[in-house]
């Protein structure tokens, strides 16, 4: 149920002015077959996408069916590299209560090699260097710490490769 507080805790002569009335729902969430397979693979350090049978696009991560064509992907998977191209990015200078990153930080939209969908993540790079088309690679937690979670990848980091051609990522902007 609810509880109150008065202006001055401990001073019972003060009127009660607040009522706590939380609404709380406890769910047991099931990832389903496709996301479970994806998470079990990432626990092994593998990044799995799935290909749409209609247009051949690779979705990463995969929810088991194509959001565009409404067909299931079945059991076939495509293993992706953890290297990719930085398509777009933002430099964040405003703190958020639930994001434990030092300011400023760079949010990154990464197109992993072999994927046709963008992965949103964080980039560890110099603010002066960061640019569209930069080649990047995932930085993983130590292997012993891997679990069934996308947090196994801590962030992305630039790698020493020539920038990707604009044509190769322009449709993802």
């Amino acid at each position, binding site marked *: *149920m609810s509880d109150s507080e008065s202006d001055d805790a401990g001073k019972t002569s003060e*009127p*009660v002015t607040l*009522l706590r009335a939380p609404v*709380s729902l406890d769910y047991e*969430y099931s990832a389903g077959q496709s996301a*479970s*397979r994806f998470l079990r693979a990432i626990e092994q350090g593998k990044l799995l996408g799935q290909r749409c049978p209609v247009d051949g696009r690779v979705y990463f991560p995969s929810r088991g069916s194509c959001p565009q064509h409404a067909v299931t992907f079945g059991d076939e998977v495509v293993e992706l590299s953890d290297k990719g191209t930085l398509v777009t990015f933002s430099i964040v200078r405003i703190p958020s209560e639930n994001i434990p990153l030092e300011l400023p930080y760079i949010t990154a939209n990464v197109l992993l090699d072999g994927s046709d969908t963008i992965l949103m993540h964080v980039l560890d790079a110099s603010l002066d260097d960061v640019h569209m088309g930069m080649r990047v690679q995932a930085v993983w937690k130590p292997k012993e710490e891997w679990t069934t979670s996308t947090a196994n990848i801590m962030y992305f980091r630039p790698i020493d490769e020539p920038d990707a051609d604009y044509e190769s990522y322009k449709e993802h902007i």
Partner: protein
Amino acid sequence: MPAPVEKALTAPHKLEYTYKRSLGDVLSKFFTGLRDRKIFGIRRPDGSVMVPPKEYDPDTSQSLDEFVEVSDEGVVESWTWVREPRRQQPLAHPFAYALVRLDGADTSFLHVVDAGDESRMQTGMRVKARWADETVGVMTDFFFEPV
């Protein structure tokens, strides 16, 4: 769809809105009263007393300010037995939800009667508030029990 090979992963997910509501003058008076082990109603233009108090008259929309202290004892007008309480309900053992009209009030309100057994519940029975050792100004500062 091919037969699943492994059990899907699950995880608990709590969705919570942690509301804190400010109390205006009328509800502050009511909840402060509970902390002091008193129950306040409010008088309507027609002379009747509403418990708990409302800020505005439901029929005329006039703003109300005449508080009336009512008894912490009254009558059960209707009730439902809760045989298997859920985690978020007021008591962990079986109890009754009841509409109780306190002596001095013209309206009833929903609360809990800790009767112990369903056989003790009866429409028209009298109940009295059993106050907590430490009251803080919430509805659960008291539960009703049979007189």
